[in-house]
């Protein structure tokens, strides 16, 4: 490798190291992880309270109650825990990424950093790497919390733990990776919005609005006919559902709304659509930041 390339790699490494320096000293990092753990725990707690009340007397109540018990068992922790994660970790990771980039403008720290010769793409690249890294950490951490919660319920009600072995471990790793994959586009969208609007609040607000509102519009369009009905196919949510369905499905309706969505798109297309959106967000973010004047 030439010395020039070595120099570039060293600068890139320095930029990432500087971001790590900031992130590990940032209280927000730990608050977000704690919030994620709390959200997952509270959700499992609410399910447990519901199970404790018993099945009730309405029609199909027993089937729903049994389905819920099955859903929160350790046997189903991979599909169910990660479905929870998809919601909560997306929110947490979007906040993390949006504030990490947006605060640089809010605090006017981007000027001094760029003014000392840090290449702009190195700066944004390091933000992207750290955001994706945080997404991995958040999903794994949340999954462990979900695992602990479901193990407790499983032990409490004598439910099935499922098998333990390399195959299941491999399946869990693949499922975690898929969950990270479907969250990352929203993380990149958050970075893009922070770069365009130079504000953490606007970035987080916009990315979360897209995340939640897209589902509503997709739902509205699902009953449409003609070409309009195909619009959701090109959006993120339906394709994310398809990818998430590879993690496994929960039988019955009692598991709640988190596993909704058609998820019926061809998997290869779902990968492509999500990758295309992620790449688009990334290119736009880099293009914008590269050309933009640093004026607070």
């Amino acid at each position: 490798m030439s010395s020039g390339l070595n120099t570039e790699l060293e600068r890139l490494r320095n930029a990432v190291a500087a971001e790590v320096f900031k992130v590990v000293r940032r209280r927000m990092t730990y608050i977000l992880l704690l919030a994620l753990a709390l959200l997952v725990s509270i959700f499992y707690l609410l399910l447990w309270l519901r199970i404790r009340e018993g099945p009730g007397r309405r029609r199909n109540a027993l089937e729903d109650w049994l389905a819920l018990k099955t859903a929160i068992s350790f046997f189903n922790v991979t599909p169910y825990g990660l479905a929870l994660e998809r919601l909560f970790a997306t929110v947490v990771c979007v906040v993390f990424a949006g504030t990490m980039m947006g605060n640089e403008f809010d605090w006017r720290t981007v000027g001094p950093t760029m003014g000392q010769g840090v290449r702009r793409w190195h700066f944004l690249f390091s933000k992207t790497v750290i955001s994706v890294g945080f997404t991995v950490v958040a999903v794994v951490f949340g999954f462990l919390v979900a695992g602990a919660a479901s193990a407790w319920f499983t032990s409490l009600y004598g439910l099935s733990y499922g098998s333990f072995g390399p195959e299941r471990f491999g399946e869990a790793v693949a499922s975690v990776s898929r969950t990270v994959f479907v969250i990352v586009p929203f993380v990149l969208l958050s970075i893009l919005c922070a770069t365009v609007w130079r504000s953490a609040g606007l970035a987080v607000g916009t990315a979360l609005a897209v995340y939640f509102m897209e589902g509503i519009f997709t739902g509205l369009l699902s009953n449409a006919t003609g070409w309009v009905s195909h619009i959701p196919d090109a959006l993120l949510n339906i394709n994310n559902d398809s990818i998430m369905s590879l993690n496994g499905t929960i039988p019955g309706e009692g598991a709640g709304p988190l596993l909704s969505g058609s998820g019926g798109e061809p998997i290869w297309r779902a990968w492509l659509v999500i990758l295309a959106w992620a790449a688009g967000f990334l290119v736009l973010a880099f293009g914008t930041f590269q050309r933009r004047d640093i004026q607070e």
Partner: protein
Amino acid sequence: MFPPLVTGMLTPIESLLGLRDRSAAGRPSHQSFREGNMPAASGVGLSNNGALERDAPVVEARGLVKHYGTTVAVAGVDLVVEKGSVFGVLGPNGSGKSTTVRLLLGLVRPDRGTIQLFGEPLSKRGADLLPRVGSVVETPSFVPYLSGRDNLRLMDRYTPRAGEAGVEQALRRVHLEDAAHRRFKTYSLGMKQRLGIAFAILRGPELIILDEPTNGLDPQGTREVRELIPQLAAEGRTIVLCSHLLHEVEQVCDRVAIFGAGRIVAEGRTADIIARRAELEVRIPEIDAAELALRESPWGQSLRREDGALYVSGPGSEGRSVNRFLVERGLFADVLRPVHQSLEEAFFELTAEGAT
């Protein structure tokens, strides 16, 4: 930096990313107050082969133009800062001086014009050149949840140069070592300013750009900064000082550029700018006779009478010549005193001229 093959591949990418020069140099468009507008002699030396060569100016900007929408922020600025000088940048708000500083730091891209730092183009070599520059632009901004010390450590992680010892030395130099453990968000404006200066000098830069460095400092702090600047210059560093405190600039800068309406309206040695309206004050008992005589002299046109004194200016109006002129006519002055404009007076006069 890269092998030719990779460089060839990078060139179009750099162009695409806006890292390459976009236009040619412009021409100077302002009043120059130095003889023949020649570079200072401090950078002249002999090369290895004995030929006379001159150090490239530390900053050389030519024909800089920057628009924001329809607003012209910088309208053809030419700026040369020689090695080792303390260069003052003056101008009212909105005159383009802060935008020019941002252009010099690569934060803002020019619409036209070129910038060279240390003799190399900023647009191509910014990542190599800017680590040799220390700067504070407007109010210093750092990560609020990090301590002063950690903020310096952070900045040194991006472009490592100073190390732990350098961080401590910079903190000591601005007398911030006792508060270095406190979070930046708890700092007073003066402490923030000190940390900004510590950041600017952190990596032992060859060029230091200070934008309003005494803003928010108490008189003691202002004095310390004013003393620090010549010290830094004595270490061989080049200083660019932007300030609206004309007295401050007059005290520490050897050269000055005065901005007005996006242009440099005057540039030159501080002493020359101050001396542009140098006059000789003559106090004499026979003032009417003296005025009559001086009206017939080569200085007659610019002669003025004010508060019981005559003010003589123009070529050869030094005290000795005027005194001889008066004595030859039997007129004996009580007082012959050179009077200079203050930089403040020059500033207002020049910026008013620039505006019209």
